[in-house]
């Protein structure tokens, strides 16, 4: 009895698997599959679930318009569960088993680094929607979030020129994005004549909750006569106790403004923003931007999600841009073949949600406007400053000694993600 059962089970599993793959193969003829690689459980689920929903909404909208190349789009959702190695496995599953035409996904830099070899090996396309630390350009990845020169550097310029800030606290969570960004910022500030004594760098663990001494230190650092600002790359929910402590210790935004790169509408919707009023965030999109295209997007989103209180944020706009760029490229190429799409997408332009256009550059980054907003007590931002035009994303920072000479250009004749303009050689992946 027992042995028969043991034999039977794999047989059933095999039949089911066969049936599934068969139906998958049949389905592939009529639909174009789009992979969605966002964590739906674990610590990153808070942020990434929204992006999964955004993608589902965009795909549904496209299908209502008649799909792509005469075929319907079919979303394939997988859950990498905030587990970095699992990201690579799920990416492989999407590309090898599901044979998706493109993947939209990842949030943290470490998850992107984890899937990168898979996309390069299997020649897939990844659209990555989150602001990141730069210093990367892969043939297979399109970076629709901001590079440091599209977020961090303009924010620092704003503080320096408009608010007259002379002392700088660079506070961040201890991992790759804050560390690289702060390295770039410190180099940039020194370039502008700021001395070491006027820069304070501080790192804290993920989910840090006891901010007393750090905030007291910032207060002391800021009480020495020069206008001081905090540039925060503090990630995720550690921001809540940080801002709370700032409020409790009586540091108002007018005294020491905090400009954050990871705090958006979504993060603010979980907290009481009264003590935060006036603190700043630098993004390429704010929900409060009053543009017809944005208003329509917000309306569609509310209808899709069935909740008029849900907010929109910057990475959602990045997916909106990325998805539209991809569909346009597929239409231009007339196929979903990754190489053809990657060649067709460069130079394409689509409107963004803030009234401008986003263009895909040869380095696989896009052009974006930079907006500085002040937090309001309703969890929204009021734009207090913005760039006159879109800034092209720079893959390799001009302020780091190691990457000064590097550029990325995926068009012939260079076709290289890290081309050294001094030695005229490509030091990494090529075609």
């Amino acid at each position: 009895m027992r042995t028969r059962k043991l034999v039977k089970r794999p047989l059933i599993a095999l039949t089911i698997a066969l049936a599934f793959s068969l139906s998958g193969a049949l389905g592939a003829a009529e639909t174009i599959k789009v992979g969605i690689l966002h964590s739906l459980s674990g610590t990153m689920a808070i942020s990434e679930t929204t992006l999964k929903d955004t993608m589902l909404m965009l795909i549904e909208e496209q299908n209502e318009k008649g799909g792509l190349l005469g075929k319907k789009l079919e979303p394939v959702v997988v859950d990498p569960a905030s587990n970095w190695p699992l990201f690579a496995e799920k990416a492989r599953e999407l590309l090898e088993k599901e044979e998706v035409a493109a993947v939209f996904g990842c949030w943290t830099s470490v998850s992107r680094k984890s899937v990168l070899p898979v996309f390069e090996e299997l020649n897939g396309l990844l659209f990555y929607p989150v602001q990141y630390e730069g210093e990367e350009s892969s043939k297979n990845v399109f970076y629709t979030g901001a590079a440091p020169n599209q977020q961090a550097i303009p924010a620092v310029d704003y503080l320096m020129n408009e608010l007259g800030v002379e002392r700088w606290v660079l506070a961040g969570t201890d991992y790759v994005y804050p560390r690289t960004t702060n390295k770039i910022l410190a180099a940039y500030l020194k370039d502008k004549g700021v001395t070491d004594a006027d820069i304070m760098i501080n790192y804290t663990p993920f989910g840090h909750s006891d901010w007393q001494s750090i905030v007291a230190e910032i207060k002391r650092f800021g009480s020495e006569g020069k206008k001081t600002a905090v540039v925060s790359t503090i990630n995720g929910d550690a921001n809540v106790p940080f801002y709370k402590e700032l409020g409790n210790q009586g540091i108002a935004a007018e005294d020491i403004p905090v400009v954050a790169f990871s705090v958006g509408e979504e993060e603010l919707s979980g907290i009481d923003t009264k003590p935060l009023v006036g603190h700043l965030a630098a993004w390429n999109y704010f929900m409060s931007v009053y543009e017809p295209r944005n208003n329509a997007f917000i309306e569609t989103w509310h209808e899709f999600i069935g909740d008029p209180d849900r907010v929109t944020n910057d990475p959602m706009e990045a997916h909106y841009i990325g998805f539209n760029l991809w569909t346009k490229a597929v239409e231009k190429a007339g196929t979903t073949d990754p190489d053809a799409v990657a060649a067709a997408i460069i130079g394409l332009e689509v409107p963004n949600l803030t009234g401008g256009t986003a263009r895909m550059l040869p380095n696989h980054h896009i052009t974006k406007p930079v907006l500085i907003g002040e937090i309001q007590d309703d969890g929204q931002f009021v734009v207090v400053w913005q760039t006159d035009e879109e800034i092209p994303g720079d893959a390799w920072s001009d302020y780091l000694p190691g990457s000064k000479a590097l550029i990325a250009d995926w068009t012939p004749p260079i076709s290289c993600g890290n081309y050294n303009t001094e030695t005229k050689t490509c030091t990494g992946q090529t075609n």
Partner: protein
Amino acid sequence: MTTQRWRGRSDGRRSPSSRVATGRLLAVLAALWLPLFCAHATPGSDGLEAALTQLTERSFATKAAAAEAIAESGDERALGLLRALLDGDLHFRASDGRIVFAERSGGGYRVRDALTGEALGEAGRREVRRIAINNQMRTQLRGLIAGLTLAHPDPQVRLAAVHEVMADPDDETLKRLRERLAGEPNGRVREALELALALADLEREDPAVRLAAIEGLAGSLEPAVRNHLVALLDEDPDPQVMAAAADALEGIAVRRQLNALAETLFFGLSLGSVLVLAAIGLAITFGVLGVINMAHGELIMLGAYTTYLVQQAMPGAIGWSLLVAVPAAFLVSGAFGVAIERLVIRFLYGRPLETLLATFGISLILQQLVRTVISAQNVVVENPAWMQGSLVINPGLSLTYNRIAILAFALVVFLGLVLILKRTALGLQVRAVSQNRAMARAMGVRSARVDALTFGLGAGVAGVAGVALSQLTNVGPNMGQAYIIDSFMVVVFGGVGNLWGTLVGGLTLGVANKLMEPWAGAVLAKVLVLVFIILFIQKRPRGLFPQRGRAAEA
């Protein structure tokens, strides 16, 4: 001359004067034109009304000029208007640009005219728009309000006003400060006024006046004093003044250091009190029952979620919600604790590895339960007003109320628990069972019931800790994970089965952590504390306060 020189460097907060000038010009122009169009303009308030209209402009510079004009209008409503603008209560009607106070009511706003106070009925959410201000305007508004409230009847308001203008007063303000000093009845306000005037004297040309001012300022911890003195040190032409400034700065530096040390100690005790709160429930379940309860963190989380639910149930009374939440959280977590003990742990006594695995499983189940029932997202637990802000002891040292409250709360919980164990029948039975189970049973103690109640007590205390932690950190399904390691660390360090060990251990680790943090950084400080504990346990495996005697061998 000297005044000029120092004024330029003072602190760069003022808005560029040219901007204000253009704005003022605009305001004047508007003031000239507006009465022609506005039928409802009352005579005498033209300037004010014109300035108010400017507030609907998009440019912050125009708005800043308008605020200035409001302050200078001399109208008695100016103060209220500026305050409303600062607090974000000032709106305008999209249809006719009328400036109104708007109060949220239902889906829209209840609207009142800002000048006349006349009720204008209800308006939809999109019909009324708030007048947005930015940080530069907030600074400006605070300054303007301070200027208007220097003679306010409430001494607290006067004190705040003096502090606001202290760093960089103009000649007009200085004159008013001097007048104020002559008739000021309140001691603290007088002190602040004298300080402000002494600061201004530092910029006078006569070295004797500067010397006298330095003498008056010696020992003050006000940041502005230190900054002005540092500036003197750099560029005062008179060597005597320079020497005096150096002396005064040295005195200030010593006092600042003492204050910083006191502050660090307080931070350490506060972190320690959080550790004690988190660990004390575990000290009972692990220490007395010997159960390695990996779900301890989730019992804390349940307490925090109870706080959230209590606040949801009584939205109008956030201040009282915590008082309700404490017993509620004790009961909820305690009930879960008893259930866990009855359903799982009692079958696993004496098998630590299985207990560990089972309770770890329970912790995952509880997390998922919260995710499914409430939400995977963090929830907002509000701080009552009395836990916000800080107690200012002197300008260099202030202690935040929420930390003081939690420190006191931790001690109360600790003493309560000690009393329960020492003074009640249940406490006696718990101690008896933990010392010698067989003998206790022979004496008629129902050990199974005692086990369940003990576990429930430990779990309930964890829930109470959750109420306190909900005031400090994020409340989400994962929050328990952050405390489980710390809790075990404290219990093992303090000595298993000893409540006093938990108290002393928790506070020691908190202070040690905070003493190291300034020079080692938050990440390394935590690592160093762990290394220290590992070394300590090597030397004294039973912790700070080991159990002695026969009980320890059992």
